[in-house]
């Protein structure tokens, strides 16, 4: 889901950049000194996760972890993904510098939205946390896929075709991500519930 340089048109790139700048500003305010090590750890996890390919059926998938970052860091997911994607762009040429804004927004925004929507569920004990974790983990991946499809539709690619293709390709990732996120979430709820507040 890393969009490369030269695919999107300038207005989309600019808008992505603006949204990411806003999200990052909010995120930096949101990160208290206590939350920063957590943000660093999760950024490292997201950075490495996209290099780790888990064979699944005929193809293989990699984790995105955006839902997990949204759940734990909330708005902090923006600066986190910004750093992560910047390093992936310059070190591995995944994505690109001009698409950094758009790519960061694609990852972080659905995660933040899902994390806020799942808040009431999170307060309903360990089982609630399990369900919330699954929903946020899987839907944040789908949200990111839909945003990619939407942005590609401005370049002339058919939205429904692109969306179907991307969502189908990410179905296994979403399921896996949901399960992982659910377990981490219920685990945190039991041992460190204050993290999820």
């Amino acid at each position: 889901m890393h969009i490369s340089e030269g695919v999107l048109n300038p207005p989309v790139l600019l808008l992505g950049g603006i949204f990411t700048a806003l999200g990052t500003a909010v995120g930096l305010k949101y990160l208290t000194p206590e939350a920063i090590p957590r943000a660093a750890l999760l950024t490292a996890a997201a950075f490495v996760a996209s290099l780790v390919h888990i064979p699944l059926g005929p193809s293989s998938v990699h984790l995105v972890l955006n839902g997990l970052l949204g759940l734990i860091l909330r708005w902090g997911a923006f600066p986190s993904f910004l750093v992560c994607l910047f390093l992936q762009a310059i070190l591995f040429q995944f994505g690109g510098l001009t698409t950094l804004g758009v790519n960061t927004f694609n990852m972080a925004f659905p995660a933040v939205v899902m994390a806020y929507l799942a808040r009431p569920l999170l307060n309903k004990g360990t089982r609630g946390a399990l369900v919330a974790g699954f929903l946020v983990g899987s839907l944040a991946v789908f949200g990111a896929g839909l945003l990619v499809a939407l942005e590609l539709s401005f370049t002339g690619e058919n939205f429904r075709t692109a969306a179907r293709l991307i969502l189908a390709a990410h179905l296994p990732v979403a399921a896996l991500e949901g399960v992982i996120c659910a377990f981490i979430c219920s685990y945190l709820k039991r041992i460190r519930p204050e993290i999820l507040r």
Partner: protein
Amino acid sequence: MRFFFLLGLLLWLGLGASSWAHRIYVFANYEGKEIQGEVYFNDGRPAKAQIEIEADGEVFKTETNTQGKFTFTLPHPAHRIKISAYAGMGHKATVVIKGQNAGKPVSKQPAPGQQTPAQQALGPSWRDIFCGLGYIVGVFGFLAYLKARTYGSKKRPEN
């Protein structure tokens, strides 16, 4: 600690596994009027891609076959050829072949069994991965330093 263990486990699982598309590579060869090329994903799998060839301002379109290869014959020799491959879902790669030596082969076709540059690019090296992790620690460490300074001075006002 458990988190690091999980991270390590994921890394280990990922080794040797085939990979998910992150970027594509286009590799092309131009001789006379004929362009031959190949498009790969970063793990070496051939990519089904739409190819746009811009030869001295004229634009031609073609696409790769199932082996990720394409050939195209230009109507006349060109000096600057820009080849863009687009493999869907936001993956695009571009290569420019320029030529005072247009008409002569500009990149050698690899011998049978030899890898193309695209196939050699099998993915990020361990060095790059640890380099990135180091930067992450550094960036967030610096942020923590900045925040802790203001935060600390608010908590403990100067005597």
